[in-house]
């Protein structure tokens, strides 16, 4: 796309040509996105030749004083912490302290094509860029000492990190997944600062491209292993398959030695790694590929099987071949397994947490909350909300329900939800990166759990 290089006169002429060629794109405008949620989504034919990319970027305006997202009846929402700088994930320690990981994309992704320059400019709008930016890349500790749902103490635990995202805690060690490594800091519960320098547990695939840079982290239920998500280095392998080594994958890391292996692959951009508290199965939400049309490819939530391949880049939802990718690999397509539960296209699901053991109302007793950061590459917004998917026997068992909305105001975004967690009182926390806020969604009747449950600690069996 060389928009900047062409005169308006030409642009007008070309626009006419493009409009004439694009009836298919407009016909998809009344597509029912709900038909793409659940185990068996409707997948329209891919559009490999969309000349004019569909774009609708929400300008970030932020929240005004007292303004909050909207929640369902029986719930109440309040700002848990404000004035943060791009909060991406929240993590509750076993003593109830909450870590908020704030992060910005690493700089210096090489620009290989004219398109990359234009894409970077669009993404800057979607992330509320412009003007002098406050220092991000830090982890802030929030302490609610009296467990009343309000933060009483706040301190910056670590600063100057390299685009951190996931954290985990075990054996007096805080693990931080930066954009290129898992770091291990000595850290005892209750500490409000860390001065010790970290050791590198394991290097992760990093820059200079590091296209999908967010590395999430989960601790295995037995506490022995860590799981790190590593997103792909491209949309559909357009940087070459050699740039995708150990990417679009979930790595399993031995906490004792740092040795790692690919646990599952073909997951384009996995985040929200969480073990299901009843089945001890690893679950993730995945951002699927773009530029096949506004209603392809649906993002999804899936359980992750050891050694499984989920298709990227060669195919999606099992055997749906992506013809953009060469050399072709029919052998890999044959192996690809479809994911468990589609979330509809371009919602950008980034956060996942299970509600089991929380203090939320019975309607949300056993299921998954999913944070949808929101679309920018279709004509109608999709996502920009937190949804709930009920589970039964450790499997999704129904349609998703919108739980937290109101992040959009017309064509502007007040905030965008990313990572989710359950705080030390059993309420849902939402990291809102564009709104620089962590929201707390609690039962309206004021219920709290008898004691804190850490993110890494399996919840007690159903109560």
């Amino acid at each position, binding site marked *: 796309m060389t928009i900047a290089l062409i005169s308006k006169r030409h642009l007008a002429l070309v626009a006419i040509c493009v409009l004439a060629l694009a009836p298919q794109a407009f016909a998809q405008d009344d597509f029912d996105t709900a038909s793409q949620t659940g185990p068996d989504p409707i997948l329209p034919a891919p559009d490999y030749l969309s000349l004019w990319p569909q774009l609708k970027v929400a300008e970030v305006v932020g929240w005004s004083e007292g303004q909050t997202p909207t929640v369902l009846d029986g719930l109440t929402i309040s700002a848990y912490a404000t004035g943060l700088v791009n909060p991406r994930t929240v993590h509750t320690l076993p003593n109830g302290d909450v870590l908020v990981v704030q992060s910005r994309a690493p700089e210096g992704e090489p620009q290989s094509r004219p398109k990359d320059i234009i894409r970077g400019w669009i993404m800057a709008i979607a992330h509320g860029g412009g003007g002098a930016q406050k220092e991000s890349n830090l982890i802030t500790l929030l302490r609610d000492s009296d467990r009343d749902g309000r933060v009483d103490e706040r301190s910056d635990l670590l600063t100057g990190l390299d685009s951190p995202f996931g954290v985990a805690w075990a054996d007096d060690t805080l693990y931080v997944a930066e954009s290129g490594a898992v770091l291990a800091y000595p850290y005892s519960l209750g500490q409000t600062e860390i001065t010790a320098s970290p050791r590198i547990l394991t290097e992760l695939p990093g820059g200079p491209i590091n296209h999908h840079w967010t590395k999430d982290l989960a601790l295995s239920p037995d506490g022995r292993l860590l799981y790190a998500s590593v997103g792909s280095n491209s949309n559909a392998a357009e940087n070459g398959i050699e740039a995708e080594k150990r990417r679009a994958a979930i790595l399993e890391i031995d906490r004792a030695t740092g040795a790692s292996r690919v646990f599952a692959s073909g997951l384009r951009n996995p985040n929200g790694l969480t073990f299901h508290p009843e089945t001890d199965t690893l679950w993730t939400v995945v951002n699927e590929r773009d530029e096949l049309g506004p209603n392809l490819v649906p993002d999804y939530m899936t359980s992750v099987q050891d050694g499984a391949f989920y298709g990227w880049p060669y195919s999606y939802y099992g055997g749906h071949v992506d013809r953009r990718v*060469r050399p072709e690999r029919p052998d890999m397509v044959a192996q690809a397994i479809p994911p468990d539960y589609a979330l509809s296209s371009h919602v950008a699901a980034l956060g996942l947490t299970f509600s089991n053991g929380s203090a939320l109302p019975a309607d949300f007793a056993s299921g998954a909350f999913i944070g949808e950061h929101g679309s920018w590459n279709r004509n109608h917004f999709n996502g920009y909300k937190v949804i709930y998917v009920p589970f039964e026997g450790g499997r999704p068992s129904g349609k998703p329900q919108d739980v937290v909305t109101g992040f959009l105001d017309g064509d502007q975004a007040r905030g965008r939800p990313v990572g989710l967690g359950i705080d030390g009182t059993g309420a849902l926390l939402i990291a809102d990166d564009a709104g620089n806020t962590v929201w707390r969604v609690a039962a309206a009747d004021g219920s709290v759990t008898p004691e804190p449950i850490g993110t890494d600690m399996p919840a007690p069996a159903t109560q």
Partner: protein
Amino acid sequence: MSSWQPTAQPIPVRSRVASIFEAFPIAGFSLTLASDIAYWQTENLMWQNFSSWLLACGLAGGVLAGLWWLLGLMLGWWRANWPAAALGLAILIVAFINSLVHAGDGWTAVVPWGLALSGLTVGLMLASALLGRRSRY
């Protein structure tokens, strides 16, 4: 003092500038066809990136050439050769659409439509050359 070469006249700077601008689309769009063929044959994405930049450079030069031509038209440096100008504009439009096609990812951004449009652009440039007159891209 008469010259031994009766037609030799100093080429005005404005015409030389026009030639410089015109060189970009001629070289850029021709090489785009070559690099598209290379990608088609090798599946090496480097060639697709080359094509995208070649198209961008050709378009930049072409737009500058067009603007220079318009400026000259207004200042009376030259008179309009409308068929050639229309052909030049057509080349730019096809090349622009081609750059949108090339902005896709991977194989389908080149094969078959990117490659076809690259061929069409070169064909139009050849037609423009055969028109025998100075065309402005």
